[in-house]
């Protein structure tokens, strides 16, 4: 399996570069290109990512691989009180490894060199633990960003993943405002929206996404969505059997007011600790009611206008 994946990588790398679409010349051609439709690709089996935080080691290989493959600029160095120096998902960081420090009470002050006793240090009882979680776009089945997009720039692909078509985006900000997970972000460089595209170009070449490829522990797993869900459920059961009673899946099943996600997580603690809402809400659930309230309010006001004119105009 591993060798066949490697040979596919080499095979694709040896292919001559594909020719891009012809650049439009003139204003009319540019406008026409904006309305052009390619052929709808044939639907493929739905794929996704299963991120098992219980075996994430916080190495950030996924972040680096994502930046390298997608040619994303590096973040300016920013030191926080944590090993997390990415901060949040952004237009230039489509992967974000979160570091949660779970160390209970503050640690007592330790002697520093030259008084440090390494033997004593090694013999100390292990207190607390780290939680790592590699976050990215959830590729929601009913994605608010997709529903919010007025230009069709945000689409579901033939793999049931969600991508932004950067050449169509106007930078209106509707998707940024709609995403409840803080995934989509507007770039200060080009004004357009950007987010993880689950390496759409690699998927089309039958390769797995760069993050999954780079993950050294198998914490980020790529595959057919149903297989991943079955694997995830089995993993939760195994963790429960080993005493991790709080282990749970997030996004593998439909929430009360939100669809299931095609990038889902196995968490060891409450979702909020990892920056995920326990019960996300899709704002589109309110659309019909908000439209109705608006229309009724407006028509009522116009009826008052008509009534006043009718009564007083004689």
């Amino acid at each position, binding site marked *: 399996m591993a060798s066949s994946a490697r040979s596919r990588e080499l095979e694709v790398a040896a292919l001559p570069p594909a020719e891009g679409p012809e650049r439009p010349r003139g204003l009319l051609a540019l406008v026409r290109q904006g309305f052009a439709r390619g052929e709808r690709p044939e639907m493929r089996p739905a794929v996704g990512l299963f991120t098992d935080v219980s075996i994430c080691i916080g190495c950030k290989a996924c972040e680096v691989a994502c930046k390298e493959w997608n040619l994303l600029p590096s973040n300016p160095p920013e030191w926080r009180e944590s090993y997390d120096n990415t901060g949040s998902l952004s237009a230039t960081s489509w992967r974000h490894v979160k570091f949660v*420090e779970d160390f*209970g009470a503050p640690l007592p002050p330790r002697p520093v060199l030259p008084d440090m006793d390494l033997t004593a240090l090694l013999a100390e009882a292990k207190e607390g633990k780290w939680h790592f979680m590699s976050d990215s776009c959830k590729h929601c089945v009913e994605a608010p960003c997709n529903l919010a997009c007025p*230009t069709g720039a945000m689409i579901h692909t033939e793999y049931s993943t969600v991508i932004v078509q950067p050449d169509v985006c106007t930078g*209106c900000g509707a998707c940024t405002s709609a*995403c409840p997970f*803080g995934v989509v*972000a507007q770039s200060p460089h080009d004004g357009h929206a950007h987010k993880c595209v689950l390496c759409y170009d690699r998927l089309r070449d039958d390769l797995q996404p760069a993050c999954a490829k780079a993950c050294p522990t198998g914490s980020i797993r790529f595959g057919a969505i149903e297989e991943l869900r079955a694997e995830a459920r089995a993993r939760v059961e195994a963790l429960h059997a080993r005493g991790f009673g709080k282990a749970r899946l997030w996004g593998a099943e439909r929430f009360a007011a939100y669809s299931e996600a095609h990038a889902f997580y196995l968490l060891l603690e409450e979702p909020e600790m990892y920056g995920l809402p326990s019960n996300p809400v899709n704002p589109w659930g309110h659309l019909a009611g908000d439209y109705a309230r*608006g229309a009724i*309010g407006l028509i009522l006001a116009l009826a008052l206008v008509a009534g006043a004119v009718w009564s007083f105009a004689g």
Partner: protein
Amino acid sequence: MSPSATDAPRGYQEQVGAHPSPWEGIVPALDVFLHDLGLGIFLVATVGWLVSPARFAGLLRIGWPAAFLIVCVDMLLLLWDLGDWTRFFHMFRVFKPGTPMSLGVWSLSAFLGALTFPALWGALATLGLARAGAPLAVRALALLALPLAIPAVVYKGAVFSITSQPGWRDARWTSAAFGVSAVLLGATALLPIAAASGFTSTGVLWRMTAPLLLLDSAVQAAWEVELRRRRGRALPLVARVAAFLLSLLSPPTLLAAVAVAALVHVPAVYSRLLFFERQRRRQD
């Protein structure tokens, strides 16, 4: 660097939620104001004309061009507020009525398209370059613009409320509040125009402001009560302070305060308006 371990566990609880909306600053506020003002002027003038053509015919000559110009300026503001304004035409690639922004772009564009000739006629008639009575084609186009104005008004509130932004996401009455405010704004903006021009519609416009103000107060109260009921989690400091101040008022007392304000304010405004109307009639 060792783990600082000051709080346990130190997670991402504060980061749960959406990125802040890029719609910030004065432009969105100006956009809502101009949008409501322009469409409100058109709606009040046109509905008034449909019910009482004799009284409102004169007002159309100013109302339609004013509405057209104000909505055009608003569209330019929206264009300027885009991340990449050179791609505005991409908004017409798809029509998604389930997407408030798409509904807004299409309905506003269709509305402006239909209102172009009525506005042109109004401007020419005001300058004395066209006959005072609107031609049949102009009236037909204005009638076409009327149903287009309704989604053009309603979408604006939904653009803000159908998001994951704290506060807005819980504001279920935003569309209704913007809609009623648009009509109220339209009526109050037409009032000085009608009064200055000596149109016979002035008195009617004065009289409709009181019930509109009451309706607006009721919707604003519903908006606030709904927000108070839903708000609570992970709000920014300013919103928490506002929530605390509002928590001093329970829903019944809040409603009572709005009712008392309306009861005091509306008769005061109304009696003043009637006084001015009587004075104007005496002058006539």
